[in-house]
């Protein structure tokens, strides 16, 4: 069996990548992701990881190189954040469109301007529709586990779609947490060698990414979307297998004290830790409050989300991203869409908090829940509210 150790979360992600026996890493450093690839670079330089580390001049090149290494059948990893992720934008579509099972860690960070190196989810939300499988980790252990799982899911021949593991910049990436670190043999037993279906091979040449005339483009996009939707079932399978092997359970939507809850807080990422304490305190004060946490973001877990909010009077969705000029937060929009067909559904309120590294405090959760009770009595007054903003 493995051992229990304390480790910086970024370095634990690097360790997961090493234990996944990755063949190639192409990356460009950017805060707060840097420690992940810096450590991988060190591992390769020290001979502890038998992989090619490709140094590139930009994130656009990093993702392009990843497409190349994945296309020749190499298990491929990269990591980035914020502007770096934004610079990868067009190549993210190519990775998913070519069905290349690259795994990427995103140490979530706010987008400029103004320049912010601190955490929020605006970077990944801008890449929501790039066709990648997307997870949000709450804890370091989860970031470690999801990284290993992501390879197995992405490389499954029913899926063959790239996957991103989101971990909050600094508040998760840079903290030291306890880890149940598995043995290499345990990881090897769980994660088989990548067996690509089609590769670039001079002896058996193929053309990847040819022009898709109007006659076939729609069909190819349908193919791609079916693979992403089908990933849902594979993800559940892989999580079941993971639980059997490592004893940790993973679900698309995590629920906490939702039994008999009138108001549910919905959140993604590391802030769920604070949210749980807030829920405990409010429960102690007699308020029927629970928590749901989005772990799987793409493919969106419609059924699990509907089941998670069943019976609640209201859901207060806290997004760490503002959809400018839109309906509020992106997670809230998806939740509303998921609930819209239901004959009976809770009131759904959108709150924006934790932008650019601002803490989401216990008081912020109390404010959100109080406002949600007010809306239940008085009806909605705003499309969304920004929490903690100085008026």
């Amino acid at each position, binding site marked *: 069996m493995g051992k229990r150790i304390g480790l910086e979360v970024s370095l634990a992600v690097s360790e997961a990548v090493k234990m996944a026996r990755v063949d190639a890493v192409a990356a460009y450093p950017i805060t707060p992701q840097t420690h992940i690839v810096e450590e991988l670079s060190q591992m390769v330089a020290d001979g502890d990881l038998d992989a090619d580390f490709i140094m590139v001049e930009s994130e656009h090149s990093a993702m392009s190189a990843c497409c190349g290494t994945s296309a020749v059948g190499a298990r491929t990893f990269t990591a980035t954040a914020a502007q770096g992720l934004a610079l990868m934008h067009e190549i993210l579509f190519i990775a998913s*469109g*070519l*069905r290349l099972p690259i795994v990427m860690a995103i140490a979530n960070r706010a987008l400029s301007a103004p320049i912010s190196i601190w955490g929020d989810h605006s970077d990944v939300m801008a890449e929501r529709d790039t066709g990648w499988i997307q997870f949000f980790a709450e804890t370091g252990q989860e970031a470690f586990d999801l990284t290993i799982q992501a390879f197995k899911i992405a490389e499954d021949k029913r899926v*063959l779609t790239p996957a991103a593991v989101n971990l909050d910049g600094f508040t998760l990436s840079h903290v030291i947490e306890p880890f149940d670190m598995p043995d290499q043999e345990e990881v090897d037993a769980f994660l088989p060698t990548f067996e690509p*279906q*089609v590769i670039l091979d001079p002896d058996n*040449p*193929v*053309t*990847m*990414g*040819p022009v*898709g005339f109007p*006659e*076939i483009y*729609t*069909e*190819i996009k*349908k*193919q*791609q979307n*079916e693979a992403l939707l089908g990933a849902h079932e594979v993800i559940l399978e892989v999580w079941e297998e993971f639980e059997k092997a490592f004893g940790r359970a993973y679900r698309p939507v995590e629920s906490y004290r939702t039994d008999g809850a009138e108001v549910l807080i919905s959140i993604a990422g590391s802030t769920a830790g604070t949210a749980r304490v807030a829920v405990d305190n409010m429960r102690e004060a007699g308020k029927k409050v629970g928590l749901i946490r989005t772990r799987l973001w793409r493919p969106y877990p419609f059924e699990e989300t509907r089941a998670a909010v069943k019976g609640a009077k209201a859901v207060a969705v806290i997004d760490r991203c503002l959809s400018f000029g839109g309906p509020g937060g992106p997670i809230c929009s998806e939740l509303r869409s998921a609930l819209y067909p239901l004959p009976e559904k809770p009131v759904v309120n959108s709150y924006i908090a934790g932008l650019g590294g601002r803490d989401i405090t216990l008081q912020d959760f109390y404010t959100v829940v109080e406002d949600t009770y007010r809306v239940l009595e008085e009806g909605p007054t705003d499309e969304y509210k920004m929490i903690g903003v100085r008026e």
Partner: protein
Amino acid sequence: MTNDKPTWKEYPMAATIHHPGSATGQNTGDWRSERPVRDDSKCDKCGICWIFCPDAALFMDEDGFYEVDLFHCKGCGICARECGKGAITMVEEGE
């Protein structure tokens, strides 16, 4: 819509082409409105037309002249423009 074209399930994943060179079967010659015609008395077989042809639609015959593959030639006229001897003239199709 029903027709005899392949469904999304029938295409290779990501539209990958498993038999490269498939474009050689495409008759791009039917895009052409003008075709290059060579004057053998001016041509010195230098091959500049062959070098510049963007579609590899020229090939050397046994006498060393560069012949046009009209199945692929799109009639862009680059060969005529680059020819240092003025040996190639673009002639309208149908003439």
